């Protein structure tokens, strides 16, 4: 893997982000209603709207609004939210941090359960264990998170009172309390991912275990565990990395339902609130931050590919 390749990829990431920012800006221009309408809501009179639009700079030409915004971003200033008047950057990065924390916990929890489940199902293919893992994964995939979340709240929080039903406590403020509030959302988010990751691990591992080099390893007299972990899993895990990288995207933007139900102030909810309020600076910055995270994670996945499989050469 050459330095010029990495440079090219980084340039491509910036190019992607530029296109994304133009697209989002374009889309928000076409949406009905603007931030002034949403701010004033049913209190909007023609002159109040006009006054607010002027103070928000919404009456300037579109290209000027865009240039002003992108100019700020290049200097690290994402502007101020039209809805709350807060600095967009700090607010969104804090929301991103919350989402990433949920994501990291969920990924870790998911991998701890999904990898062994997939491996077990693969080596006991066709046996009861395999069927059980398949059955449970189907249930996990079939239940959308608003169902599992509601059920979890109802049973575990309302009836048994084991865990708090909703709310978010920063870990820096109260570690134990924060973790207690995280258990249910992490479990709910993980269930869906466990299902497809364990199935992916299983099918890949089954394929790999039928290849000639594994048979050769058996004939060479290597131990079963060495064959499985060193030769089998290492190759079977490659597609799983892609899946996990894609899941990070899901974890950042797709778990908005979970963020709503458990009142977690993540970036999905921040973006949703911004879209509802037509809060352009926040929409722009939010999408940009999510796109950037997505690009970086996928880039990291590609690098990890090359590291795990020396046959892959990027140039």
């Amino acid at each position, binding site marked *: 893997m050459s330095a010029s390749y990495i440079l090219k990829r980084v340039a491509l990431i910036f190019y992607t982000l530029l296109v994304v920012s133009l697209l989002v800006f374009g889309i928000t221009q076409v949406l*009905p*209603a603007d931030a002034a309408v949403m*701010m004033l809501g049913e*209190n909007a009179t023609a002159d109040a709207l006009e006054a607010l639009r002027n103070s928000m700079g919404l009456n300037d030409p579109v290209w000027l609004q865009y240039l002003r915004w992108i100019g700020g971003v290049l200097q690290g200033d994402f502007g101020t939210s039209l809805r709350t008047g807060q600095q967009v950057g700090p607010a969104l990065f804090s929301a991103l941090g919350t989402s990433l924390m949920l994501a990291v916990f969920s990924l870790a929890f998911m991998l701890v359960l999904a990898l062994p489940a997939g491996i077990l199902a693969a080596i006991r293919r066709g046996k009861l264990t395999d069927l059980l893992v398949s059955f449970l994964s189907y249930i996990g995939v079939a239940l959308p998170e608003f169902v599992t979340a509601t059920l979890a*709240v109802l049973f575990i929080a*309302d009836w048994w009172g084991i865990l708090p039903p*909703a*709310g978010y406590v920063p870990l820096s403020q109260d570690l134990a309390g924060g973790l207690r509030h995280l258990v249910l959302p992490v479990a709910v988010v993980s269930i869906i991912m466990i299902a497809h990751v364990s199935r992916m691990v299983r099918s890949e591992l089954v394929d790999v275990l039928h290849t000639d080099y594994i048979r050769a390893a058996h004939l060479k007299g290597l131990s079963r565990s060495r064959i499985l972990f060193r030769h089998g899993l290492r190759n079977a895990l490659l597609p799983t990395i892609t899946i996990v990288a894609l899941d990070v995207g899901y974890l950042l933007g797709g778990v908005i339902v979970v963020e709503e139900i*458990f*009142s977690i102030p993540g970036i999905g909810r921040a973006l949703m609130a911004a879209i509802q309020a037509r809060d352009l600076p926040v929409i722009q910055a939010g999408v940009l931050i999510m796109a950037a995270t997505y690009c970086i994670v996928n880039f990291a996945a590609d690098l990890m590919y090359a590291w795990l499989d020396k046959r892959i050469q990027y140039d």
Partner: protein
Amino acid sequence: MSLNRRTFLLSTAAVMALNAYAPDIALAQAAPERGGTLRVAIDQAVSVLHPLLSRVNPEYLAAELLYSGLTRLSVSMQAEPDLATEWDANETLTEWTFKLRDNLKFHDGAACTSADVVASFEAILNPDFASPARNNVGPIEKIEAVDPLTVKFILSTPYADLPVALAYNNARIVPASVIANNFESLRLEANGTGPFKLVSYEPDRLVVVERNPDYYDSARPHVDRVELRVFPDLGAQVSSLIAGDIDLVATVEPNDFMRLEGEDGIDALRAASGQFCNVNFGTDIAPFNDARVRRALALCIDRDAMVDFMTEGYGIKGNDTPLNESYAFFKALPQREANLEEAKRLLAEAGMPDGFEAELIASDRPAIRTQLAIALREMAKEIGVTINVRTMPHATYLDQVWTKGAFYIGFYNMQPTPDGIFKLLFTSDAAWNETRWNNKQFDALIEEARGILDADKRTEIYTKAQELMFEDVPSLIPAFFDVLGAKRAWMHDYAIHPRASVFRLDFAWLDANSPTRAS
């Protein structure tokens, strides 16, 4: 007399009977205890902290904790002293004088005087600041500081309801210096004369306030802190209340309310109200420009079924006028009931014996709007009218339909006075003249009532105004909602307010059973 169960029940019954007559006095029954953190669940973000610009109930709540007005609204919709202790009007009700309390202080320690009151109201009335209060504080032409503790409002027309109107959610007093130098700073920080001071502000998660030691009434507030916690999911609010993680859910949906009514340690709170969901006609657009068509639709509605369907039984029938028993100066008209024959006859008379087809628009927020639209669609089938319901995102609705459309669903909180709701929606000069009804006779009646203090006379005039609406049906108002909320039993002296946007948490207190009192 020893206290057994029977005498206890009798005495509570007596107290409750007393409450029914004097809900405000009931607040004094047990001695309030001091301390603790009151945790309140709210269902929307506090996006706007600025007291002159807030627009939804959770924002009004935050503003009410941090700021004061000249007057405040009691649970029975009367004006109570807040920063002003007394007020008086001239004979014609065109000049009102308000006396301020002595030694008022803003949170930063600066004195609050009549100059701040004048500056605040000038800001409210300044169109550049776009304060929602501008249309709601009455016909103020000018406001002057007579001396540091006296302000005078000069009105363009007589207005008997001024003290109540000045209690409007956005009519808060902020420092004159802030208005002059840095009006926008109030979006992120707070400097008021309210019972609490701002500790931290995260719009989408948590607002924390603590007791203001310089509050004008040293007895209040009773709790040390209030936390407003944002729970976007209504079910999660209720679960957290049951778990004891919060003390008060400001608003509850009917189905959650039923679930809470049986829970131990929880008080489900309910107040009759003038809140309604209605069907607005653009009375200048065919076929709704014909009063017979509008009346025909009013006559196809089974109002008992509407109350069941829309409010789950937590509400009362409407009579196509915005007033009901919750309002002062109200006299009931004969209740309109379904009469399909008469409805068909009216349609035939209007030249549409086979009915007509129309598109009814409902915003998706709150969901009750769609419910009303669907119920009307089914009921109108009976008289041959085909209604196609179209739901749309609230943003699109506000931009394209609201106050412009011919046939759409509205949703309104109760206003403090009949004048408030009529001037908001139905007069020709209404702030939101959705129906473009523009009935001169109606306008004159509402205007006349503004200049009268005598209750009987006002009742008479508003009854005439109601009759005009009942006859002409600019809008269908099939049902009124009760306002629902819930609190833990360890929280006391909180009464749910029919206006739904007033909270009065400085009167509330927590007893020793509350988890935050111990720590």
